[in-house]
């Protein structure tokens, strides 16, 4: 691996969100606006600091800082390599937008929400910048518990139940993951770090042992990444959480699981060992099942956010599928989809939030004509919905194209069938929303003031700027990133550097 | 059998008997008194084992102080075991 240079910047980035926390602690009762905007500034500064590392990362530098070392081999260390940087950039950006959005969206218990938002950002950034599995796990667990208050923020019965389910899943997963790391440490000769081509090998451990490690890792991270039999908490948690939190759940926290799997595949096991162990077909099958079944489930949902949640389950598995192809393009598409999906799904959830705030409507069947009431929001929604289906020129298309190309490269065109099926299903569950929003208002009679009539069309009363601006930015990026993916800092510029090394 | 051994055996037999009596007696006061006798026999036994310091201690503490503590307690609570 290239020599890493010492730099305190990663630590600064991880600690900056705490500024928001300090702001909240400093004036918990007074100066509400100031406090909230300080939270925003904390988030902005974090993003800025992460962004400032971009030139160095593009030059191939690796920044590292050792926090603590329990014993040799077992240390807390932050390292910003290209892959970690990529995830960090995506998440701080999405976090920034979600913070802005929350300022207007959250209407009670601001302090708790923003405090935990900031904490979560810090922890998950720690995940992204972890240098080894030990550090990753520590931040991952903290993030798990830090995100709990976000999910139950509404404190409705539904939210509590969802939070409970989330905790049950997360704790079980954490335990399995913990076991995986101990086994990894034990059989990996004490090597918990991320190597460029993986650190485990059959020299030190038997096949069965490595398989155990792999599948416990997969199960542990699979809960967060919502691989199909382990996805149970996702469809409950997303609708229950406030919309910015759902956007982050779907856009970032699910990705933390997926990112863990990426790390396991690329940097712990390495592609060669994956081939040798022949684990990838199992993973691929799981991913395919998840993609298709989740989409089918999504079709049946009437609650918008629940439908989006199921969609997320399917989409995150694109990443897993891309990894399981063990091909250059497949990996490229899968890893890039991490950012792509964050943009699209973040936007969609924020749109759902706007709808909820302005009209109080949760279910798709009630949304007739809403496109005229919230034109900007719904246009953005439509853009993202189309992108989800894989319509060019959007990020969704890039993903699908690369995955398709990857499956040809891997010699398994059957994946293309899955991708196409998924695209069709996506169309089947997204297009009706767009259709209802823009083209259906006549048929829906409603009863109001004792008489039945068609709802009046209301034009142009868009939501606050804080709500709309993030939505618009995300929707624009869905297109822009889809077209100019190679702009420095955009997914391709970063991911290709990683993937090109692994698949020369 | 030597004279000393026979005496030892008798003492041990007495010890076992008094201990058994002490734990079976229904009257607690009787039990405590028997226990005091047990302690005295024990002191005697220890004297025979060439431990005069301990014989003295056991006579004073085991047969004396402990017994008195038990007796006080029984006076303050009840004398007979409950059914």
């Amino acid at each position, binding site marked *: 691996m290239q020599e890493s240079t010492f730099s305190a910047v990663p630590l600064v980035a991880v600690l900056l969100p705490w500024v928001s926390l300090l702001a909240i602690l400093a004036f918990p009762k007074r100066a509400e606006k100031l406090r909230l905007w300080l939270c925003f500034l904390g988030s902005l500064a974090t993003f800025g600091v992460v962004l400032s590392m971009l030139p160095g990362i593009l030059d191939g530098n690796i920044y590292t800082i050792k926090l603590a070392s329990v014993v040799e081999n077992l240390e807390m260390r932050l390292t910003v390599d290209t892959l970690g940087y990529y995830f960090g950039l995506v998440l701080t950006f999405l976090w920034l937008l979600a913070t802005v959005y929350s300022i207007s969206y959250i209407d009670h218990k601001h302090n708790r929400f923003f405090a935990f938002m900031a904490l979560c950002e810090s922890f998950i950034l720690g995940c992204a910048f972890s240098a080894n599995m030990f550090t990753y796990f520590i931040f991952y667990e903290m993030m798990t518990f830090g995100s709990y208050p976000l999910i139950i923020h509404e404190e409705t019965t539904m939210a509590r139940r969802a939070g409970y389910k989330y905790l049950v899943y997360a704790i079980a997963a954490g335990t399995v993951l913990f076991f995986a790391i101990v086994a990894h440490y034990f059989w990996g000769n004490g090597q918990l770090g991320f190597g460029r081509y993986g650190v485990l090998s059959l020299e030190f451990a038997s096949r069965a042992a490595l398989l155990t490690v792999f599948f416990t890792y997969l199960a542990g991270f699979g809960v967060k990444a919502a691989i199909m039999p382990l996805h149970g908490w996702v469809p409950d948690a997303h609708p229950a959480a406030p919309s910015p939190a759902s956007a982050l759940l779907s856009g970032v926290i699910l990705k933390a699981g997926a990112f863990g799997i990426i790390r396991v595949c690329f940097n712990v096991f390495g592609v060669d060992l994956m081939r040798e162990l022949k684990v990838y077909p199992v993973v691929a099958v799981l991913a395919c099942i998840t993609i298709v079944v989740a989409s089918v489930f999504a079709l049946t949902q009437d609650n918008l956010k629940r439908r989006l949640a199921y969609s997320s389950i399917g989409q995150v598995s694109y990443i897993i599928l891309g990894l399981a192809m063990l091909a250059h393009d497949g990996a490229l598409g899968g890893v890039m989809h991490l950012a792509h999906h964050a943009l699209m799904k973040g936007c969609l959830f924020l749109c759902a939030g706007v709808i909820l705030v302005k009209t109080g409507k949760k279910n798709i069947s009630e949304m007739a004509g809403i496109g005229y009431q919230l034109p900007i929001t719904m246009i953005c929604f439509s853009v993202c919905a189309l992108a989800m289906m894989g319509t060019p020129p959007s990020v969704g298309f890039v993903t699908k194209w690369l995955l398709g190309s990857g499956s040809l490269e891997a010699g398994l065109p059957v994946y293309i069938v899955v991708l196409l099926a998924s695209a069709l299903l996506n169309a089947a569950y997204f297009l009706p929303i767009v259709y209802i929003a823009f083209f259906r208002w006549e048929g829906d009679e409603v009863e109001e003031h004792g008489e039945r009539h068609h709802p009046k069309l209301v034009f142009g009363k868009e939501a606050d700027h804080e709500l709309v601006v993030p939505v618009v930015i995300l929707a624009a990026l869905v297109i822009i990133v889809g077209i100019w993916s190679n702009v420095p800092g955009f997914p391709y510029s970063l991911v290709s550097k990683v993937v090109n090394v692994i698949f020369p | 059998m030597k004279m000393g051994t026979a005496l*030892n*055996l008798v003492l*041990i037999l007495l*010890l*076992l008997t008094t*201990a*058994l009596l*002490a*734990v079976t007696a229904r009257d*607690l006061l009787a*039990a*405590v008194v028997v*226990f005091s006798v*047990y*302690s005295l026999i*024990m002191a005697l*036994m*220890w004297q025979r*084992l*060439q*431990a*005069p*310091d*301990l014989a003295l*201690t*056991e006579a004073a*503490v*085991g047969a004396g*102080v*402990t017994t008195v*503590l*038990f007796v*006080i*307690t*029984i006076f*303050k*609570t*009840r004398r007979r*075991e*409950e059914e």
Partner: protein
Amino acid sequence: MRLLHNYHYAAAMLLFCLGLHTVIVRRNIIKKLIGLNIMETSVFFFYISLGYLEGGIAPIRTGGADPARMVNPIPQALILTGIVVAVSVTALALSMVILLYRQYGTLDVDRLMREEEPEAGESGKEG
């Protein structure tokens, strides 16, 4: 045959078991404590027998007594401590018995333990 030779030890063990049996089975608290004391003295007995020397004399060096014939003083020193510990535990246990009888009106351990606890809440405090 060693058992017969070590009959002091054997007697101590039997007393120990008798005492333990009393502690476990007897329901009367005072009986339990008598059992406890029997256990203790039996162990002391065992220690002192350990230190005994065939034909030995007490370890007091008066009048040019032969050190080689003296019995072992260590167990005796230990047991002095042991006796003090025993009487201390007994005193504490008995004072608790007095208090328990005053509060529960029984010396029967089963009844004592069966007694319902007052409803939780302020129960931790008195007065």
